[in-house]
């Protein structure tokens, strides 16, 4: 790493780097941690550079050690501020986000179907689904009719992109709002459960039997009317512990998972602290349930 100091082997990098304004410290007063933190948080660069060397060359730091001390201050400051801000996000935001994500996905698929129908009459090689719409959106329309189809395909792309953004937002915020639920159920499933229950508090107040069938209300009410067997699981079916367990044991798996999810929701609402013990107990229980299948074969 000392090679960079001599300049020679890195001529290209140095020439560009000598006045690289992308550096988080570019133009900053060495003592201004507040401004430095802001730059760490909001800045960007197309590519990395030998920042420590640059900092010394441009007199931001007296030495590499000095630079790293300043960087430590700035990153600690920036990350602490960002963490505090993010943790104030509430469960209500999460509910909105997961519903919006589902809306975007559903609508994207719906319009993609329309696009496919229409595009099939105009283009030979129109693809299907959202991916097909993505290809179509890249086309240059030749006629006013084609322009409408391509424009519609662009709407599909926008909606699909927004669904991905919403998913990323949920993955980021669910662990802050509900650390135990997110760890146990995955961030998106945690958000779905909170949405179905109508909030973290009401989820925390539900018995595990209710959590087990959240999202299977139709089947549950059919059962209660005496027309169907009781549902074994609701949205928690998407969890690997349920879906990945053989069908005979899925009821047990769903019951075990729902039990721990109920405990996790209460921990999240009343204490707000992550407790790895819940996950460990569930893992143990799942191992027992899955061992049943192994023994019979």
């Amino acid at each position: 790493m000392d090679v960079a100091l001599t300049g020679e082997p890195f001529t290209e990098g140095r020439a560009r780097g000598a006045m690289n304004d992308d550096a988080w410290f570019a133009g900053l007063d060495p003592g201004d941690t507040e401004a430095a933190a802001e730059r760490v948080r909001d800045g960007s660069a197309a590519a990395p550079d030998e920042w420590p060397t640059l900092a010394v060359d441009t007199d931001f730091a007296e030495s590499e050690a000095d630079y790293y001390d300043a960087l430590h201050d700035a990153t600690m400051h920036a990350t602490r501020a960002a963490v505090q801000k993010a943790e104030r996000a509430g469960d209500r935001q999460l509910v909105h986000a997961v519903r919006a994500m589902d809306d975007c996905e559903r609508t994207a698929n719906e319009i993609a179907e329309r696009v496919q129908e229409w595009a099939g009459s105009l283009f030979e090689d129109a693809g299907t689904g959202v991916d097909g719409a993505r290809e179509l959106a890249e086309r240059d329309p030749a006629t006013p009719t084609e322009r409408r189809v391509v424009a519609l395909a662009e709407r599909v792309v926008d909606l699909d992109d927004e669904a991905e953004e919403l998913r990323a937002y949920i993955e980021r915020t669910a662990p802050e709002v509900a650390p135990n639920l997110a760890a146990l159920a995955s961030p998106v499933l945690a958000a779905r459960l909170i949405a179905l229950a109508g909030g973290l508090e009401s989820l925390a107040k539900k018995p595990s039997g209710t959590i087990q069938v959240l999202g299977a209300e139709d089947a549950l009410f059919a059962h209660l009317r005496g027309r169907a067997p009781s549902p074994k699981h609701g949205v928690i079916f998407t969890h690997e512990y349920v879906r990945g367990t053989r069908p005979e044991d899925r009821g047990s798996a769903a019951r075990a998972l729902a039990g721990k999810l109920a405990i996790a929701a209460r921990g999240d609402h009343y204490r707000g602290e992550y407790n790895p013990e819940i996950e460990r107990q569930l893992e143990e229980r799942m191992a027992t349930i899955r061992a049943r299948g192994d023994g019979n074969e």
Partner: protein
Amino acid sequence: MSELPEGVERRPFDGDDRLATRGEPVYGEPTAAGWRAWDARRSKLGAMLETGMDVGLAGGERVLYLGAASGTTVSHVADFAGPTYAVEFAARPARDLLDAAASRPRLFPLLKDARKPETYAHVVEPVDVIVQDVATRGQAAVANANATFLDDDGRLLAAIKARSEDVTAEPGDVFEAALATLEEQYEIVETARLEPFHEDHLGVVATPR
């Protein structure tokens, strides 16, 4: 078994020889005479060392750590490596990462999305080693996107988690697909399953193409 990096040793804890580094304890791990046990069951990099993979670490390297989470593993890395950049996407674990970084002046916590390297390229310098442990879909794509940080003779040490890509697929198929993607940017040096420490995880050592 390949050699351990300088600053990592096997030390006795309650009668068992375990991997250990020297530093402030972070997550309630056992300590003895200034050394803290490095639990391979809680750390994929620890498991890669434990299974004898050729990680090529000597100690003192510049490291970019993707998916630092609460700082369990990255705290050990910072104990034996040089400047260590820890990228974590979620705020909650990043809070604990801050605690680990507080006593380690060359550990730099960054609340950033590893899928968007341009959002931290203005802070992170070119590094000798990228350690990757992100549990999202598209793990190989994350490694590829971050190849820009790796020196020509640097190394990627990645743990690929099968369940993060597709819970229904066979882990073997998932790993094959991930390796194929990695080969766009890297030369694969060695791979090994991380059982019994981590189920359905593949340890990967690779160098840039």
